[in-house]
């Protein structure tokens, strides 16, 4: 009798291992805080910060803003080049994400690449609870690289509205006040 029990036990053990392994192989989505954002890792731009608001953010808050603003531009440039909306989800607000998703499909060929080289972010409004930031980004320098053609540089003045939601600053609205070609 015990012989059968041992057989059953072994069958169950093997079944358990098989199920565990199969379950493990299924690719599941990692939680956001474990994920490594390659786009952001590779992107490093120079951001100068200037506080011109009535409410002054702390040094720690500024560092967080600098880090997230850098990430926002990494994703905005990726969006510009490829029109893929999903990679930057963590850095867009719901409304912003809905809008960019409403505009056409991802591009199959990437003809124009944009890089941001310099920023000077003037914080003009900062919420007392630290959840809203409106800023003017003056003298942003962009480098454009067409697939077939010569690269060129532009200088732009940009206004952004950022909201702190779910551990990140997210872009809610943006305006390119002007953009001009420059020589470099």
């Amino acid at each position: 009798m015990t012989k059968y029990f041992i057989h059953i036990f072994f069958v169950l053990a093997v079944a358990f291992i098989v199920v565990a392994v199969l379950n493990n192989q299924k690719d599941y989505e990692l939680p956001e805080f474990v994920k490594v954002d390659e786009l952001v890792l590779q992107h490093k731009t120079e951001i100068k910060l200037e506080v011109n608001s009535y409410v002054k953010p702390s040094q720690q808050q500024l560092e967080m803003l600098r880090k997230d603003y850098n990430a926002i531009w990494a994703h905005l440039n990726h969006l510009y080049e490829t029109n893929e909306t999903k990679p930057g989800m963590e850095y867009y607000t719901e409304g912003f994400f809905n809008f960019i998703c409403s505009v056409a499909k991802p591009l199959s060929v990437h003809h124009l690449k944009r890089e941001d080289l310099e920023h000077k972010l003037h914080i003009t409004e900062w919420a007392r609870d630290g959840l809203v930031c409106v800023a003017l980004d003056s003298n942003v320098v962009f480098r454009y690289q067409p697939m077939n053609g010569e690269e060129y540089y532009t200088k732009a003045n940009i206004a952004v509205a950022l909201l702190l939601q779910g551990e990140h600053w997210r872009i809610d609205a943006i305006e390119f006040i002007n953009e001009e070609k420059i020589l470099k």
Partner: protein
Amino acid sequence: MKIYIGILCGLLLVSCKESATKILWMNQAPLIDYNDAVFKIETSNNGAIENCYVYTGLQGIKLLHITNGKYIEARVPKGIRLFAGPATLLIQTKSNHSALFHFVGAQTFNYTAKDFRSPKTLITDSSLTQQQLIYSLSRSRNLKIVNGEAAVENWNDIAPNQKTYFAQENKKETTFYVEAGSSTDIQLVMDTISMDKQLRFRSNKLLDKYGNTIVDGTRAVLFIKKGRKKIRVETKTKNGIVQYAVPKEVKTPFSLVLEIGASRSNTLYID
């Protein structure tokens, strides 16, 4: 040697011919309205155009194009709103040539305001000044700039009445609250003795200095003193009133004080 020169010349000629593919944007203008925009493009070789794109400040969009006689007509796919502002028209030929034209895209839109208040909860004990931040944006996420300013900042004094306010009507996420502060005057009285012969006490209706009923669940502390024994009991307010029944085990005489926050009631002596 001659052959090589011949090949070189041939190559040169071929390459010259290639670069001669000229791309012209016929109705080029510095400002283009996206709503009824038709980009007329002419090339020295019509069939050669592969694709046309508009790159707004945010994303690149492939245009739909049809050949119309001598030129090509490209337009934004129907039902799509584009982000307004500086943009680039990129025309790609089949022979891997591209031409770039810069313009400013315009979009007719209504701006909607977003109103942020901070802090969200005000307590009448502390400052009643609230910061208000408003910025306006369109459906295409264009931020409205007025006189070089993207947002308006106001500092408002809020009335000290306990209430739930809406910064923007019908938008639940914009609610903010004024909550009552701490009570100023506490009167402790004995209730009528009930059937079970427990001693019951109650306070008056507790109000803050502006007459708002203090918040339910505010911690109230009763200090019972019986001879040398001291008993501390924590209870909470409900509908602005503290009610407490002293257990039968605590025999008279004793004294009783109620404390809420920094205020203290009269001392009741029970014989």
